[in-house]
Every structure is written in structure tokens, then in C-alpha cells.
């Protein structure tokens, strides 16, 4: 690689300026590489991303990794503490292996939090962009409709939607998506309105750019960072909301695990066996925090102005 560069440099200095220009076309590192260099300098974000990757991988491989059936308990070992032989993370109130439940529960909790946030963000960015950019009647129609959703407390709305749709993981994800859209849309909308009035948008107009081009080329990239940061903070909250819905019998049904249900299950033994709640609780906090940190890191690495 460096040999090639040296060759190119040598050729460039020896021959004409045209060749120098040609060589410089190869000097540009790819966007991905620049992003990675910026992101990997943020050690904390890198560690958080690694943790998320690890947890996701472990959850995905739960059928292989899980040492026991997460739904079948061994009553002789009820509430056994951390480090019990064969059960590193102990057992819960029904004698089920907590590590196995953590792995299987992660599949549910991560899916319930990540997918709705991702889908809702996509829809919201589109809605916010269109409403903010075109303004007037379009703005009124979209934003006032979303305002109606703000009239209900988010959790209540999620419960209502999930209740109408009936229990099941897919329905919970759908209801969380619907609940999230008004919130993320607001953030995307505000960002769009701010960016829309920037001079560089006028500059694009003066250059004869089409509205579509202005919207997706110039406005969209500049509205993403608040959405990324906001979305990443939502992931943790949504794990908890999903757990809440399951607790009410609207999400997945027992004895299947999810981190929220595991926390709830342990509440009766908090004084006798705190680890039953604490292990999934710590997982929840770690994952939620990691998403926040990664969100901040992404924003910094994606914004050319914030790169070192």
C-alpha cells in the first residue's frame, strides 16, 4: 500500500501537474474509513459498541450457548446464589437457570427495543422532513395528527394499542413503534425547520437544485444527529416499556423470559435473593447506557465539524 503511494508520489513529482491531479484522486480515504477512524478514537463509545455487539451475539446464539432450558426449573435449587456449581448466575424463584434466561430473554428484550426504535426513526425522519420542509398545509396535517398522540401518556397508549392488537411479541413491537413515532417525529421536525433556514439551503437553490435534491442531499444529513442521539436514548427506555407490557400480560407470555419480566419476578425475593432481580437489572442498565454512549459517539463521528 505505502509502496503504491510512494510510487504515485514519485511519479507525480516527476511528471506533469495532470499526473499529480490524477494521483490525488486515489489519496481520498473512503467515508467509511474516516468515520471509523473518528469513532474508534472515542474509546468509551468503542467499548460500549463492543458490549452491545457481544450481548447481541450472545442473545442470537442463545439456542447454542444456553446451558439449560430457560423455562424448566429445578426446585431443589430454588434461589441458589451466584456461583452455584453449574449455574454461574444462580437460579430464580422457580429454580430456573438465570444465565439461560438472560440469554433467551435478551433475544426478546433487544428485539422489542431495537426494532421499534429503528422502524419508528425511519418513519419519523420521513414525516418530520416532509412536514418541516414543505410547511403550510402538509405541516399542519402531519404535525397536528401526531399531536393527537401526545394527548395520551405514552405508556397508556402502548397498553391500549397492545390491548387492541392482543398479546404477542410482534404486537408489542408494533404498539411501541406507534407510540414512538410522534416523539421522534418532533425531534426530526425541529431539526428540519432549523436546517431549512440555513444559508446553504438557499445556496443549493441558487445553484438550481431540485426540491427533492435539497431535501435528501442537504437537509437530511444535517438532521440525523439529533435523531440518532434521541433514538439511542430511547432504546433503554423501550426495553423497560416492553417489559412492562409483558408484565401486564400484553407482551410475551410466561414462562418465556425477558429481562423486564425477570426483574419483576425477583421482586418478591429482593431481601432473600437480590441476585434474581439484580442480574437482569444490571444487564438492562449496561445495555441502555451503552446505547446512549454509542449514540453520542455516532453523532460525533458522523458530524464533520465535531471530528477532531
Amino acid at each position, binding site marked *: 500500500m505505502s509502496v503504491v503511494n510512494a510510487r504515485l508520489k514519485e511519479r507525480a513529482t516527476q511528471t506533469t501537474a495532470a499526473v499529480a491531479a490524477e494521483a490525488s484522486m486515489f489519496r481520498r480515504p473512503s467515508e467509511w474509513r474516516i468515520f471509523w477512524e473518528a469513532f474508534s478514537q472515542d474509546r468509551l463509545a468503542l467499548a460500549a459498541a463492543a458490549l452491545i455487539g457481544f450481548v447481541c451475539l450472545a442473545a442470537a446464539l442463545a439456542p447454542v450457548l444456553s446451558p439449560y432450558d430457560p423455562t424448566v426449573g429445578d426446585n431443589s435449587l430454588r434461589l441458589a446464589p451466584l456461583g452455584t456449581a453449574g449455574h454461574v448466575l444462580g437460579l430464580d424463584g422457580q429454580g430456573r437457570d438465570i444465565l439461560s434466561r438472560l440469554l433467551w430473554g435478551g433475544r426478546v428484550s433487544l428485539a422489542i427495543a431495537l426494532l421499534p426504535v429503528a422502524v419508528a426513526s425511519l418513519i419519523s425522519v420521513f414525516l418530520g422532513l416532509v412536514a418541516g420542509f414543505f410547511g403550510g398545509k402538509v405541516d399542519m396535517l402531519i404535525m397536528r395528527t401526531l399531536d393527537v398522540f401526545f394527548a395520551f401518556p405514552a405508556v397508556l397508549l402502548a397498553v391500549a394499542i397492545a390491548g387492541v392488537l392482543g398479546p404477542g411479541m410482534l404486537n408489542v413491537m408494533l404498539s411501541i413503534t406507534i407510540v414512538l413515532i410522534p416523539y421522534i417525529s418532533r425531534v426530526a421536525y425541529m431539526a428540519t425547520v432549523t436546517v431549512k433556514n440555513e444559508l446553504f439551503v438557499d*445556496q443549493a437553490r441558487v445553484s438550481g*437544485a431540485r426540491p427533492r435534491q435539497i431535501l435528501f442531499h442537504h437537509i437530511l444529513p444535517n438532521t440525523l444527529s439529533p435523531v440518532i442521539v434521541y433514538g439511542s436514548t430511547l432504546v433503554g427506555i423501550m426495553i423497560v416499556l416492553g417489559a412492562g407490557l409483558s408484565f401486564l400480560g400484553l407482551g410475551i407470555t410466561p414462562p418465556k423470559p425477558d429481562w423486564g419480566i425477570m426483574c419483576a419476578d425477583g421482586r418478591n425475593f429482593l431481601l432473600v435473593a437480590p441476585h434474581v432481580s439484580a442480574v437482569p437489572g444490571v444487564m438492562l442498565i449496561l445495555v441502555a447506557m451503552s446505547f446512549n454512549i454509542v449514540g453520542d459517539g455516532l453523532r460525533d463521528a458522523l458530524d*464533520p465539524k465535531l471530528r477532531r
Partner: protein
Amino acid sequence: MGEALLEVDDLHTHFHLKNKVVRAVNGVSFSVRRGEIVGIAGESGAGKSVACLSILRLVPYPGRIERGRILLTGQDLLRKSERQMRELRGQTVSMVFEDPLNSLDPAFRVGDLISEALILHKALSKREARRKASDLLRLVGIPDPEGRLDNYAHELSGGMQQRVMIAIALSCDPALLIADNPTTALDVTIQIQILDLVKQLRDRLGMGVLWITHDLGVVAKLCDRVVIMYAGEVMEQGDVYGVLKRPRHPYTRRLIDALPKLGRPEQRLMPIEGRPPDPANLPAGCPFAPRCYKARPECEAHDVPLMGAGDGRAVRCLFPED
């Protein structure tokens, strides 16, 4: 000086607010020929910028071009569809704004910003556009143009940013370049460099330039002709030397008197008393009359026409200086 490139005739642009109409541009007429640099000078709020945005048909809501005629290379711009206007913008007429940093999209590299219009209007490939972009950077005097292509705007100095803006504006060889106060954000030495650059480019490329400024010093240094605007009207126009050396309109004269002069430190500056009229509530007759040292009752009685004086000069005054 070549044939007429831009002709603005009796342009009226008004902003319709809830309960009033702001008459920002009121019957403005001027022209720019090929290879000519025309300055539009006046106080803030005189309607200079709105007049230029009207040429591009980009007057922000709730503004509207009420009447008038704008001919650019013989085409009537007010009869064009929005689609046809988009074709013209950036290609036949382009514009440079006052604030270069905020006019350059922070999410784009300089090279991609310049390439954008080239790909849009000239249907160049990315590679061709990139090569042309580096040629343009060289044209506007940026050292190591190939290296700068991958910089973001905020990594460049103010003068460099303004050069990039000019490079973008020139990318599709426009016949007319409109510059709205492009040097106000720059310090004086950089300002001079930019002015020299624009003059050079005019000589090389032969485009017409419409330069908006409130700095008569810039007008004197750069322009061939000047249009003095006040309260949305043209007060005086003519060749720069004549207008600045022997102003005919009292307003022009007071503008020049208000400038500090080198070598005469003892002389007090002469501010123009009063303030410009509210454009939502313009007085009858000459808008400058309330502040004019020569005003007589007939000035405020009825509108004063812009009167030609033969030598290319025109003055909107009943009692011009000789």
C-alpha cells in the same frame, strides 16, 4: 462592453404580511452588460438583496414580484416556469452570499459541493466533475487545489471559503454572477484579494457581475457602473467615476460625505440625519425628502421620475446637484 445581459425594468417586489404590505422594491430599473461589473449600493433595507433575489425568482415567502420585467440574455424570467428557472439558476445566473461558512453545507466536502452543480447541469460524471472542481479551485486562486477538494468548509479560512463560494458560482460558466455583500465577513486585506480576483475573472471569462454592497469603497475599487438605491427605489445611476466624483443626487452626496477621508483627521464625519422610511408606509413623493437638505414642498407632492442625463447618468431628483 458588450450587449445587454440583464435588464431589469420597473421591478416591484412586495411582502404581504398579515395587516400590511412591505414594499421592498418599488419600480427599480437597471441593466448589466456582458463583461461589466455593476454595483448596487445603499443602506441596509434599501431593497438591494430583494431586488437580486427577484432576479433569481427566489424571493422568500410572503414576498411576491408584483410587476416589472426581467430580461436575462433576452429571456423574460418572469414568464418562466419554476422548472425552467431551476435550469437557469447556477447555469446562466449564479449567486454568492454574504456569509460563506453558513452557505457551505457542513456535511459536504468542498469538492462535492462544487461538483454538485456540474453533475446537475452539465451531466458530468463524478470523476470529470472532480477534475473540473480542482480546476475551478485553481482558477479562484486556492493553493494545492487537489488537496483542498477533500476538506470540509469549516476547515478553511474565511477568505478561502469565499473563494470556494465563487468557484461554486462559476462552476457552470454563468453569464451573470450576482454577489450579495460577499466581502463583508472578511477582513480588509482578504477583501481586496477577492475584489482583484473577481475583476480578473471578469476579464478572463467575460461574465457580467452584479455586486451588492453598502461599501462605497468597494464600489470605487471594483465596479464599472453603480446603482444607488434607497427605500426600494433607484436614486441615481451611472458610471462609477462620475457618480462618486460628482454625485448628482443629494442622497448620494450625503452617503459620500458620511465616509471617513484619509488625510483629513480634523474633519468630522457627516451622518445623514433621520432614518429610512418604513417600507410598509412609504411617504408620497421622493422617499428621501424628509432627510434631504434640498427638499422643497414639491418633492413630497408627487412621485419623482428617474431622469436620464444623456451621459448614461440617471437621477431621481427634482433639484439635482449640477
